[in-house]
């Protein structure tokens, strides 16, 4: 029988929907941990599945042992994946409640999909780490947590799943929480929330479970709906890479010259003193335009057009910053690298680095180490294979104006491109200025 959706937010008064914000989160875990079931459960219980999708689900042959629908099917995307019963990529899922709109980056959890997890985590504000209550903290838990700390996700939710298989035991929950807390401390994960759940049965996913009265925290959805995430806005580092210069060159707009871009962090105000990097030329903001109107200020996340008081030569690849908090400018940078290509890293060739709107050539000057991401041991190496993560020093052909990734993700991350294939082969997180 098909249960037709009754959307949670249908009771929202008109107008309220415009005041909701967006939370992007990613889920680490494998099919075995019930990750797809968990996402399926969030979609299903929040009634975000529409009837024809539900119908397709019901017609599918995959059922749980007790005959209920296998919710994991909702997150399987491609034919190739369904045939092999695996998830080979990052799939994006959308749902909303009356409090928030959500984007889930659904990534596979096995070690061969490390690059997919890194990609999903780079686009998220929060990570959900799944632990099987029967197995506790395992190698995979450490690996996923390492990736979360590498990508500097500040908010972590550890879902201790399959509580129904351990008789909803508080002792099991507590011992896993203690074991994880040790890892969190080692990896410097500061804000960790622990929730005992059963994705299969729906306990503590959308609604609080009546089987775990000893748990006094929120359900997963309640937590996701209410957590505050907004680091970039609070930053003092005002940053706007120039994407495009708007110059209409018409008779009436002869002198119009606007620098179009999206503010990565901080805020800009009219009359702010700014510096153009890497040239170092200084000026002041004369006008801020967005949404066809002039504004006195603009903040992180907004796509705007900035105008300066002086006529300077600025183009794509330059970045405008507040003079009071200038970033680093260097050609030699120490960075964490996640290798994403099947062709291994070759220190003898030149790669391209893309850092926001700037693209320049670069070389790997030194490989410091790679990390065994299951044990966190550092290993000496002279190359990186697919999914390897470690620390390198790179040298760029032109100077980059960057912040350290741990302080400013969007101005501290970059990608490596192989000029032979044009593929994105590496993710870089800048950790230190290695220039002399």
């Amino acid at each position, binding site marked *: 029988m098909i249960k037709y*959706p009754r*959307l949670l*937010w*249908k009771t929202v008064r*008109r107008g309220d*929907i*415009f005041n*909701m*914000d*967006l939370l992007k989160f990613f889920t680490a875990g494998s099919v075995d941990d019930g990750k797809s079931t968990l996402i399926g459960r969030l979609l299903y219980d929040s009634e975000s599945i*529409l009837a*024809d*999708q539900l119908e*397709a689900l019901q017609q599918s042959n995959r059922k749980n042992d007790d005959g209920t629908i296998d919710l994991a099917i909702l997150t*399987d*995307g*491609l*034919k*190739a994946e369904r045939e092999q019963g695996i998830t*080979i*990529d*990052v*799939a*994006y*899922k*959308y749902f*909303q409640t009356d409090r928030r*709109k959500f984007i889930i980056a659904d990534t596979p959890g096995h070690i061969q999909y490390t690059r997919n997890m*890194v*990609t999903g985590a*780079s*686009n998220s504000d929060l990570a959900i780490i799944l632990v099987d209550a029967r197995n506790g903290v395992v190698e995979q838990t450490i690996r996923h947590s390492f990736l979360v700390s590498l990508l500097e996700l500040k908010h972590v939710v550890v879902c201790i799943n399959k509580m129904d298989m351990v008789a909803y035991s508080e002792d099991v929950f507590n011992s896993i929480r203690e074991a994880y807390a040790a890892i969190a401390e080692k990896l410097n994960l500061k804000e960790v929330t622990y929730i005992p759940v059963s994705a299969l049965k729906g306990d503590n996913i959308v609604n609080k479970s009546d089987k775990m009265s000893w748990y006094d925290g929120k359900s997963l959805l309640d937590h996701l709906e209410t957590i505050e995430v907004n680091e970039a806005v609070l930053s003092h580092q005002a940053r706007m890479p120039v*994407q*495009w210069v*708007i*110059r*209409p060159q018409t008779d009436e*707009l002869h002198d119009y010259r606007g620098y*179009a*871009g*999206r503010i990565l962090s901080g805020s800009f105000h009219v009359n702010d003193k700014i510096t153009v990097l890497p040239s170092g030329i200084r000026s002041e903001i004369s006008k801020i335009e967005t949404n*066809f109107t002039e*504004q006195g200020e603009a903040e992180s*996340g*907004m*796509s705007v057009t900035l105008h300066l008081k002086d006529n300077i030569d600025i183009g794509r690849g330059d970045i405008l910053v507040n003079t009071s908090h200038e970033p680093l400018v260097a050609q030699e940078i120490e960075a964490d690298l996640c290798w994403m290509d099947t062709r291994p890293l070759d220190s003898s060739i030149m790669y*391209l680095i*893309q*850092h*926001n*709107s700037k693209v320049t050539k670069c070389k790997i000057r030194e490989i410091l180490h790679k990390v065994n991401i299951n044990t966190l041991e550092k290993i000496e190496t002279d190359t990186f294979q697919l999914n390897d993560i470690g620390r390198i020093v790179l040298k760029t052909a032109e100077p980059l104006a960057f912040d350290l990734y741990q302080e400013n*993700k*969007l101005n501290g991350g*970059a*990608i490596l*491109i192989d000029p032979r294939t*044009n*593929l*994105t082969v590496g*993710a870089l997180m800048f950790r230190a200025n290695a220039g002399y």
Partner: protein
Amino acid sequence: MNKQDTTYLDQLEAEAIYILREVAGQFEKPALLFSGGKDSITLVRLAEKAFRPGKFPFPLVHIDTGHNFPETITYRDNMISRIGEKLIVGYVQDSIDQGKVIEQTGKNASRNALQTVTLLDTIAENKFDACIGGARRDEEKARAKERIFSVRDEFGQWDPKRQRPELWNIYNGRIHKGENVRVFPISNWTELDVWNYIRREKIELPSIYFAHEREVITRNGQLMAAAEFLNMDHEDHIELKNVRFRTVGDMTCTAAVESHADQIDDIIEEIKFSKISERGARMDDKVSEAAMEDRKKGGYF
């Protein structure tokens, strides 16, 4: 504007504008694929926000199957004269006349599949290196895995296993000669987001999106607008119904839903309660469970 005032629609809009400007900055000869549907109409508004008071750094491209709703063509031409941008039209009829494709026959004949050839020819003739489209990840599960910058080979093919990772807000648009990139700035929007945005921005739409009285026939359980292209015969009973269209494509493959929603607020309410997701009204996806995945591999949008 402070942080409390920033809503998810602002965030989605800012992201889409950012992506459009990346296209302008990274490609030599981009184009915006314009279907006359609400998603590509939304893209035009976003492009105005991204590039005004300058001109768009790309023309609009319409692949015309010849089986359009007349309302769509009227809307298109009015819009072009309002925004003052260049329009390039690729005609499926030309591809048929040149013998590059063969018109389907029979009752369910459609030019929907043929337009891929016309699209690829139009891309090749104009040497477009990037085509901006209005596809969304929430439409269909093969699209849930689509990149924002989706690289196609010289045959227009999409290979899900060769997709580039997209980290943070960095999009790698570097391609080899002959390849091109499909760019989807509203990937992260849902159908409802698009409608809420259209309402907020007071964007005008083709009239067929709103409930109106129309002659329809029932085919394969779906309501289709009665038109000569549908190869109607004595078995097709024409009825007069109040309908609207949730998506706007070719007349042969876009089904109507019965509705009295003739105002945007009513449409939004209707969608919220809707029992059928948007692509449920597209005949072209019903062919098989993996229909979209297969068409995308073949060069479809």
